[in-house]
């Protein structure tokens, strides 16, 4: 018979809780969200001694008030989900502060086991902890562990597996609140008369929370109390009486008492005292947070992050690409082949779908490197130092020190992804700054935008590539900062702000396991969220580009042209051996297929003379007649086939163009043209922009065609499609386009993540609308304004840069309001 145990892990941040979680559950973990909030819920499983244990990793919190989402989640879980046992992970080298949370857990009337984690660090620091004293003082089972080295694993698993056997009782510890005790007792008596409240939480705990004026506890009581007005009266009376007698609010008194008790218990349990010498972490901070060295080191860290993830990762991505296209080619082999004029819908849809998905899969190596490096920085404890150094700047723009990580992930210089960036925003405790960060992270340069810039810069600024890349890489941050400030002064004005009080954790050497786990977790989220959404949207966009399709008159027109070309071809080859071979459309398509195979084989030989010759011999042997038509440039059959091929390609292209013209998306592009023309975008550019919203990755290929950029990456003069109405594309066009792209939200996945992170459709729409409008304005300013002043693309670029910089400096210089949401109390 197997028993089931439902256990929860609770602990303060930096107590090594996740390490313990990984140690206990191994790979059997699942990540979800707590209902209705963006707080991550990790659940793991393990079996031990015929018990199945389900372990929930609660968010790390310093306390259990209702001020932050994490604390509310942790608290509600303990109260409502009725866990068999709560394992309280405590940083043994930081006993006193960690016990502050333990005190609050013990008040909630649930079985608690105390785990003194990082016992090795504590020993190194010179602490010696008496476990028996702790067990006696707190009345809870206490164990020690060293999660990083797996020490304590068996004991903890054993204890949790037997938690349901009744060996672990309710904690006997009772906090003594001194002069507040009579008030607690009186309230508790009133609460005993409330059956609904009594069933929901322990009455003593609720009495204490009500005296603390805890927002959620008060609303809980208000909702479920039979006699709320009576309860409220006596509550307010008790609070006022206590404050009058002791000149301190009950909330502060309660917290002070907890700290005093935590200190008394910690002192009793510590055999050796705090040594008082400068800790190693403090000495490292002396260098890493140094006035001069600190920022230099931080820049070096940024640089190596992007050098490794973007440049080296890019090389890795280039290695993966051929395999992806081979896979796609292989899969496409199973689809119905296109005929001479007939294009099966399913083939067109499936190719589009696969192209969209593989465009995203290409980025996985780069993301893996980026995520692993960031996990190292997190594990080491460097990220809070970055926040520490940058908070002053971020604060001036309505952001927060903790906005650093979202911006890095989003691509603060070049090469990130807004999806993990926006998700990382939950680490920003200040609501106003968090929203401002969520709304501005999509302006950073994601990897897909980066590829796009590289293409345009290479084609239109061939002599100033480095300068133009520098422009676009830095202009985004220069624009994002003042935008964030404007947002926080306007639409976000009413949202709450929070103080910047942050623990600077002890530096640790990262473990390979923890780093890889976290990198894999993030990659998995990327794959799940981005890929599914982008794939679904790709299908929608395909439909919007496909339907309603080409009208009958045009179809007939194309059909006639095709038949005429075919007749010409048949006439031209009449006297060649090829004529006997081409008797049906299938035969003709076989010739097309032969050519495709031959070219693929040649490409695989890639300039190797011997291999190339072997290919020739092989194909000649396979089918000498077809080979002649494909290879021998002087032969009649070659010339005729070549002409047919080109005509067919032209008709297909025109038909595709016609289809897009007619399509729903094409209509949208035309509707926007009267405005976008001031930015130098014709309707075709508009269509490409809108469709690129499914996944920015596809934009690079589309614009290459639209802007007439050849395979060599150079501008080849006005494109065949004359997208600018026959006018040549100028660097000024390119500058306007890059700026628009910089502001335009990267992709639909980002917008959906914004919805998830803000829990609001309004913010989602806003996150799409405001950057699109701003992007259009910026592009119009550059194209029309720059054109009117006769500026070149290069000059317009730096003029704009100067204006943006001036605006940023002005917004940063605007005075900040003094912290005012906290009236001086008591």
């Amino acid at each position, binding site marked *: 018979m197997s028993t089931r145990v439902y256990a929860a892990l609770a602990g303060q941040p930096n107590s090594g809780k996740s390490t313990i979680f990984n140690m206990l559950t191994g790979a059997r973990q699942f990540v979800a969200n707590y209902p209705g909030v963006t707080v991550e819920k990790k659940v793991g499983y393990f079996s031990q001694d015929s018990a199945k244990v389900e372990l929930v990793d609660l968010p790390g919190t*310093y*306390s259990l*008030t209702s*001020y932050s989402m994490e604390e509310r989640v942790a608290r509600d879980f303990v109260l409502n989900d009725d866990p068999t046992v709560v394992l309280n992970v405590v940083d043994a*080298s*930081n006993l*006193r*502060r960690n016990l*502050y949370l333990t005190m609050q857990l013990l008040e909630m009337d649930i079985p608690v086991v105390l785990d003194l984690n990082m016992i090795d660090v504590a020993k190194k*620091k010179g602490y010696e902890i008496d476990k028996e004293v702790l067990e006696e003082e707190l009345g809870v089972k206490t164990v020690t562990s060293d999660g990083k080295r797996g020490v304590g694993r068996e004991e903890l698993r054993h204890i949790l597996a037997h938690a349901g056997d009744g060996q672990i009782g309710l904690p006997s510890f009772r906090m003594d609140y001194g002069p507040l005790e009579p008030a607690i007792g009186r309230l508790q008596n009133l609460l005993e008369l409330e059956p609904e409240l009594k069933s929901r939480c322990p009455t003593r705990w609720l009495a204490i929370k009500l005296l603390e004026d805890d927002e959620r506890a008060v609303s809980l009581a208000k909702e479920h109390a039979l006699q709320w007005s009576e309860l409220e009266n006596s509550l307010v009376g008790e609070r006022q009486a206590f404050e009058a007698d002791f000149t301190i*609010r009950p*909330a*502060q008194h309660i*917290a*002070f008492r907890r*700290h*005093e008790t935590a200190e008394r218990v910690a002192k009793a349990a510590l055999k050796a005292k*705090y040594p008082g010498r400068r*800790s190693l*972490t*403090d000495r490292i*901070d*002396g260098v890493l*947070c*140094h*006035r*001069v060295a*600190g*920022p230099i080191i931080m820049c070096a860290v940024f640089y190596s992050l992007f050098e490794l993830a973007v440049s080296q990762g890019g090389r890795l991505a280039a290695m993966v690409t051929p395999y992806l296209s081979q896979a796609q080619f292989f899969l496409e082999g199973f689809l119905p082949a296109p005929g001479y004029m007939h294009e099966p819908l399913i083939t067109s849809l499936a190719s589009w779908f696969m192209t969209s998905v593989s465009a995203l899969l290409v980025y996985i190596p780069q993301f893996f490197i980026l995520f692993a490096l960031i996990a190292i920085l997190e594990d080491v404890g460097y990220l*809070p130092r970055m926040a*520490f*150094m940058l*908070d*002053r*700047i971020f*604060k001036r723009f309505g952001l927060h*020190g903790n906005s650093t990580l979202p911006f890095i992930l989003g691509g603060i210089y070049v090469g990130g992804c807004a999806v993990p960036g926006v998700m990382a925003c939950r680490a920003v405790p200040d609501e106003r700054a968090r929203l401002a960060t969520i709304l501005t992270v999509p302006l950073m340069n994601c990897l897909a935008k980066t590829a796009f810039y590289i293409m345009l810069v290479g084609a239109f600024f061939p002599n100033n590539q480095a300068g133009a890349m520098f422009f676009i890489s830095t202009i985004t941050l220069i624009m994002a900062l003042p935008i964030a400030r404007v947002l926080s002064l306007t639409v976000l004005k009413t949202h*709450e702000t*929070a*103080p*910047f*009080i*942050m*623990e*600077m*954790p*002890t530096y640790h050497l990262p473990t390979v396991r923890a780093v890889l786990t976290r990198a894999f977790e993030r990659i998995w989220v990327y794959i799940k969220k981005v890929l599914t959404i982008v794939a679904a949207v790709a299908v929608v966009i395909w439909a919007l580009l496909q339907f309603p399709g080409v009208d009958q008159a045009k179809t007939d027109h194309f059909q006639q042209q095709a038949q005429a070309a075919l007749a010409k071809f048949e006439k031209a080859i009449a006297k060649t051996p090829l004529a006997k071979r081409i008797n049906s459309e299938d035969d003709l398509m076989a010739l097309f297929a032969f050519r495709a195979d031959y070219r693929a084989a040649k490409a695989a030989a890639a300039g190797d003379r011997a291999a190339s010759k072997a290919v020739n011999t092989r194909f000649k042997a396979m089918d000498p007649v077809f080979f002649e038509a494909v290879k021998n440039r002087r032969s009649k059959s070659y010339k005729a086939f070549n002409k047919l091929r080109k005509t067919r390609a032209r008709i297909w292209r025109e038909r595709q163009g016609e289809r897009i013209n007619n399509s729903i998306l094409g209509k949208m592009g035309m509707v926007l043209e009267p405005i976008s023309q001031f930015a130098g975008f014709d309707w075709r550019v508009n269509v490409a922009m809108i469709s690129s919203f499914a996944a920015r990755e596809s934009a690079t290929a589309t614009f290459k065609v639209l802007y007439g950029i050849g395979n060599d990456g150079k501008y080849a003069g006005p494109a065949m499609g004359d997208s600018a109405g026959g006018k040549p594309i100028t660097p000024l066009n390119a500058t306007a386009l890059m700026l628009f792209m910089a502001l335009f939200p990267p992709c639909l996945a980002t917008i959906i993540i914004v919805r998830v992170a803000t829990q609001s459709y309004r913010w989602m729409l806003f996150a799409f609308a405001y950057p699109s409008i701003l992007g259009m304005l910026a592009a119009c300013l550059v194209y029309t304004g720059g054109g009117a002043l006769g500026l070149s693309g290069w000059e317009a670029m730096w003029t704009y840069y100067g204006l943006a910089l001036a605006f940023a400096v002005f917004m940063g210089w605007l005075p900040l309001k*003094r*912290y005012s*949401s*906290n*009236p*001086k*109390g*008591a």
Partner: protein
Amino acid sequence: MSRKITLEDLSPGTSGKVLALNATGDLGQRLLDLGFYPGVEFRVIRNAPLNDPFELEMMGYLISLRHKEAGFVEVQPL
């Protein structure tokens, strides 16, 4: 009556003892949760490269906070 000394007034290198917390709400709670309560001793270590925030050590761990917010912590220099 002279103005009370707050944590904001202490420069890096000085130690002190918390006398009272004059903040309520979120700020007051965060200060409490990270271990500020009457009687606790601390040492101001350093300012950030741009002067704000600053880092302090109490009971073996390090905390960073902004000067303005530190103005709500009444202290006695040691």
